[in-house]
């Protein structure tokens, strides 16, 4: 008899329910959790919905190829990739020109809103994005991450800085943006 041999099995007892529970795919789980933030970061930079969705898709494709969804750095990686990718887009002159021509008016805005106001708001967004594209990368990144709704801790993780420095850098970045917008409007 094969099983009558002297042998002492190592016994590990775990509840079977742990084995039969449906388990979501880690990439899907991370995607559904982080996509709203990633697209919000890109949208805050670009002020353009379809361009923001394009950037978010590219970010997740790159993530899928190079980072494990179980990595502790996954969320920080996604936030950093989103802001840097979106900033790269606004730095591209030709793309920016195309975007401005197609998004001077926001098609989803209610028709009752004054068209003159819409034109002015779109013009202001263009001015601000132009100013943003002239700021140093980290300065623009910290502004966009924070104003997309990330906490100070999340901003610190994405930019690999100490959380205690976020306030100081953010304050300087706000001053730099104001200065750049004023310089552009006075030119």
């Amino acid at each position, binding site marked *: 008899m*094969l*099983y009558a*041999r002297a*042998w002492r*099995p*190592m*016994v*590990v*007892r*775990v*509840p*079977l*329910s*742990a*084995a*039969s529970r*449906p*388990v979501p*795919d*880690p990439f*899907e789980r991370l*995607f*559904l959790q982080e*996509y*709203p933030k990633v*697209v*919000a970061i890109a*949208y*805050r930079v670009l002020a353009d*919905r379809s361009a*923001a*969705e394009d950037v*978010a*898709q590219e970010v*997740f*494709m790159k993530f*899928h190829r190079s980072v*494990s969804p179980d990595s502790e750095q996954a969320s920080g990686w996604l936030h950093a990739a989103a802001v840097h990718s979106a900033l790269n887009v606004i730095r591209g002159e030709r793309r920016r020109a195309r975007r401005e021509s197609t998004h001077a008016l*926001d098609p*989803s805005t209610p028709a009752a809103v004054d068209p003159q106001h819409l034109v002015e708001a779109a013009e*202001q*967004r263009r001015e*601000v994005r132009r100013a943003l594209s002239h700021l140093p990368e980290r300065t623009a990144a910290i*502004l*966009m991450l*924070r*104003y997309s709704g990330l*906490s*100070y801790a999340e901003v610190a993780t994405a930019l690999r800085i100490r959380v*205690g420095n*976020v*306030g*100081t*850098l*953010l*304050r300087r970045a*706000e001053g730099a*943006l*104001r200065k750049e*917008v004023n310089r552009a409007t006075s030119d």
Partner: protein
Amino acid sequence: MRHLTDGTLRRIVDEPLAVTAADQAHLHGCLECKSRSNGIAGDARATATMLMVPAFDPDPARALIAVQARITRDEAARPRRWYERWIDRSTPRLRPLATPAIAVVLAAVLISGVAVSGAAGQLVRIFQPSTIVAVPVSPSSVPGRNVLLDYGQVKWLPEAPNAQPVTDPARAHELSGLPLLVPASLPSGVSGPVSYGVVSHATGSLTFDAARLKASAAKAGVRVSPMPAAIDGSTLIVSGGPALIEAWGLSGAEGQTQVPTLVIAQTRVPTVDSSGATNAQLEDYLLSQPGVPPDFAAQVKAIKDPSTTLPIPIPKGFATTETKTVNGIQYLVIKTALGAGVVWVKNGVIYAVGGQLTPDQVLAIATSLH
């Protein structure tokens, strides 16, 4: 009195509870800091207005479908990785061994000879190899056609193993948790940068399901014996990895067919847990499944201590094997027309060294690794 920094005041605007009670108390009682705080809050509001965008409510579920479609397209168009090309080129006669039936039989091998607890809802560790043995298989007895039978529900806990190439050795070590192995010296003909591959740890379960097997056998036009009631519904949990692979001789351009001159691989030993069915029932049933070469089944049944022995199928005529003992460790040396390999188990890790080398060369590398 030290006043609060601009950074602290800026954070108080957004996250007032994140600063210390002392800083909050200072702000409450300091007119100068209050005034600066008001200015900073005003600047923050002005910036928020500048950076305002129209409302946008994205649809993550729709976006996920689009990304998954791109991943599927990309993976279909992806050039085959070096190890996939290498397996295809060097072991065409071994491919039939990868049939699902063989995989199930291997599970049976691991279980045979072991007393399994019958207590429902509990798992018993039934396999943890500490030695390896070659099991010669006649290629002519291996079915040429894969028989894809569905034995039940397979689940990954939490996910299927994934393999990824890594260029940085430190990263390969970090991802796998296994030490990088370095030979004392390399034979002539083996040189160049080392490529690394890491396979993640994975745990999978198979819950036997007689109805699913019957349906899949009918669909495939295969006759199978009915699954015993004691096996139907019982679960096997197999755990394996992580694994770390180091390969020499792959420095050519991507897409170009390459065969490594030397590969060193290591993985933690797999383990198997079972619930319900007894070892005798599993062994008799699984070894009688379609696709299992009779000579393989007979030799598996003859293994002296299957609970701690990992059988490695060796196709007769394709490879020969020899066991060598060095410093108390048993090495299984495999010789083929393409080169040689050596496999051994030590301290809960399975090691393999192989390449376009002689048996003496691979054994010398294996015994010199540090």
